[in-house]
């Protein structure tokens, strides 16, 4: 049915008013070790679907709607749905006004995403924090000769979702999102604000922002009965200043992110700096190999913080074969400089037909130190295979 609909509605080229497309993915996740905690399932299989509807009106106004759903064999928190985007964009003289559920990414680094703050992390989708929940917003973008000014009014807070009792890759005590705590008496109705300036100076792209509102990262508070303890997420009111930078210097691509946050324990700073150096057309083939190096420093009080990167170095590579199948590999090692923890990650993707793509992913956690949050997921090293059909 979707196929027929697709054939009628989808017009492959620009200039069309209405577009519908999306994907359906089958995924199998195989864990290398027995579960570390009671009630956790061993392996999981799931199916995820996403769609994108786009319509542009003759007035220049456009509408986008992107729903998402995942059904997991585990039938715990990982089975969930979300509206990733549902918004109107009104272009006006020298500005854009966007109203509705939107998605915004800020940042430059490859392995960590420090300054990205507008959208809440969809943590059950993956611990790389790259999947985000849709955020209701009013966004005004002012295009100036001297750069872009973005104003955000965020009227509704999205809670982070966490793996459930049966899910792997979780904290030892389950995080109970039915008992979420807020510092603000308005709770999730607190109106958050953000102002960002971004521009290009020669070879450098720079962004600077101020955020005032509900922290996207909760502090976890121990609670519950002694025989069945749980963790409660507590969302403080914070102020955060963030800076992101990416620039080219000869054959180097340099990246950096810095944040300074107050309102969550003592004030703290965090930063990541890195580079990417690419060898193009290696050995007269069409292969490109990029070497990536990043260092992250995070000064926050450890408590039950979710971030496990306090003083870590990441070394990785990106290999693009530039073949017709678009084969790509991204691999890396994250090593804690103080603790023993070492994490290996490998992602690969290859088209196997016009509309089908095969992705593979491996995450190996080794020698996790007891003081490191990575210790909780030490037994959750996995291999994941995903087959995606695009319509």
């Amino acid at each position, binding site marked *: 049915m979707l196929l027929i609909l697709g054939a009628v509605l989808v017009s492959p080229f620009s200039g069309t008013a209405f577009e519908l497309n999306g994907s359906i993915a089958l995924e199998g996740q195989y864990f290398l070790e027995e579960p570390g905690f009671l009630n956790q399932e061993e392996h999981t299989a799931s199916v995820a679907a996403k769609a994108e509807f*786009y319509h542009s009106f003759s007035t220049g106004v456009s509408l986008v709607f992107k729903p998402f759903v995942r059904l997991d064999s585990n039938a715990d928190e990982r089975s969930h749905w979300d509206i990733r985007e549902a918004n109107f964009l009104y272009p006006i003289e020298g500005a*854009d006004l966007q109203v509705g559920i939107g998605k915004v990414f800020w940042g430059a680094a490859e392995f960590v995403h420090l300054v990205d703050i507008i959208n809440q992390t969809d943590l059950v989708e993956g611990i790389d924090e790259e999947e985000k929940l849709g955020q209701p917003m009013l966004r005004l973008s002012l295009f100036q000769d001297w750069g872009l000014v973005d104003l955000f009014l965020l009227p509704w807070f999205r809670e982070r979702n966490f793996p459930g009792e049966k899910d792997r890759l979780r904290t030892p005590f389950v995080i109970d999102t039915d008992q979420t705590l807020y510092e603000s008496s308005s709770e999730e109705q607190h109106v958050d604000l953000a102002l960002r300036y971004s521009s290009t100076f020669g070879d450098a792209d720079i962004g600077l922002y101020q955020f005032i509102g509900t922290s996207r990262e909760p502090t976890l508070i121990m609670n519950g009965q002694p025989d069945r303890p749980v963790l409660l997420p507590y969302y403080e009111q914070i102020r955060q200043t963030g800076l992101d930078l990416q620039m080219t210097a000869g054959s180097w691509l340099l990246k950096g992110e810095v944040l300074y946050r107050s309102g969550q324990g003592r004030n703290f700073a965090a930063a990541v700096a890195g580079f990417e150096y690419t060898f193009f057309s290696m050995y007269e083939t069409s292969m490109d190999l990029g070497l990536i190096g990043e260092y992250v420093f995070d000064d926050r009080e450890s408590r039950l913080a979710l971030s496990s990167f306090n003083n870590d170095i990441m070394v990785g590579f990106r290999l693009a074969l530039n073949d017709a199948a678009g084969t790509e590999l991204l691999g890396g090692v994250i090593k804690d400089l103080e603790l023993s923890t070492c994490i290996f990650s490998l992602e690969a993707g290859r088209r196997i037909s016009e509309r089908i*793509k095969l992705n593979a992913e491996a995450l190996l956690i080794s020698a996790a130190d007891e003081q490191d949050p990575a210790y909780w997921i030490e037994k959750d090293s996995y291999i994941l295979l995903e087959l995606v059909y695009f319509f």
Partner: protein
Amino acid sequence: MKLFTVLTAALFSAVVLQISAGRAETPEEKGLAIAVEAERRDQGFGDQVTDMVMILRNRNGQESKREITNKILEVKNDGDKNLSIFHTPHDVRGTAFLTFSHKSGDDDQWLYLPALKRVKRINSRNKSGSFMGSEFSYEDISSQEIEKYTYKYLRDEILDGRECTVVKYYPVDQENSGYSRQVVWRDKKEYRIWKVEYYDRKNSHLKTLTLADYQQYLGRYWRAKKLHMVNHQNGKSTDLLYKNYRFQTGLKERDFNKNRLQRAR
């Protein structure tokens, strides 16, 4: 473009002076004059939107296809702005490639990745790298500015019944270009390019581009509908098939803003 017009006028008067003074035009001067005249004829198109199908063919003749919409904004006094939006392969749908070319120095390039809504700066020294796995490199598809080459006129030659000039192009950025030189066949009547031979850094013949199905738009601008690139060293080839050339569609600077690529279609 005003400064440039003045320079061009100065150059032409210099050429005229030399001829009237009885000194013959050198091959370098003649090569440059041809490139300058071709550029002059192409000025003033404003903006251009095209739909393109890219067909990649390997040594065994197996084909794969990419569909791309290409938007160009003419920029006065500098290189053009160019935005390519991918529609297929389906897994990269919505990916956009933005280039601000410059007459001197490196171009600015960004890649928009729709899955993460992320804009990545790209190293524009990647001139010789393959564009989307095709036999076209980044420098082949980037805006061809006069200042990016030095020239040498070789000869006149009849190509497929058309009287053509044959001119050698040497890249100014020799360090990062994939070529030692290009040889360009242009017809004398309309200054359209019909054939380009590319020589790699070791001076051996790497690729040949042939262009076909030219059509004139707005009574002035000639555009080819078919570009065929053959790589003689790896046996692969790529076709670019253009359709729906549209000019002066009212594109503005902001349509080429790197922060607005999520709405690009």
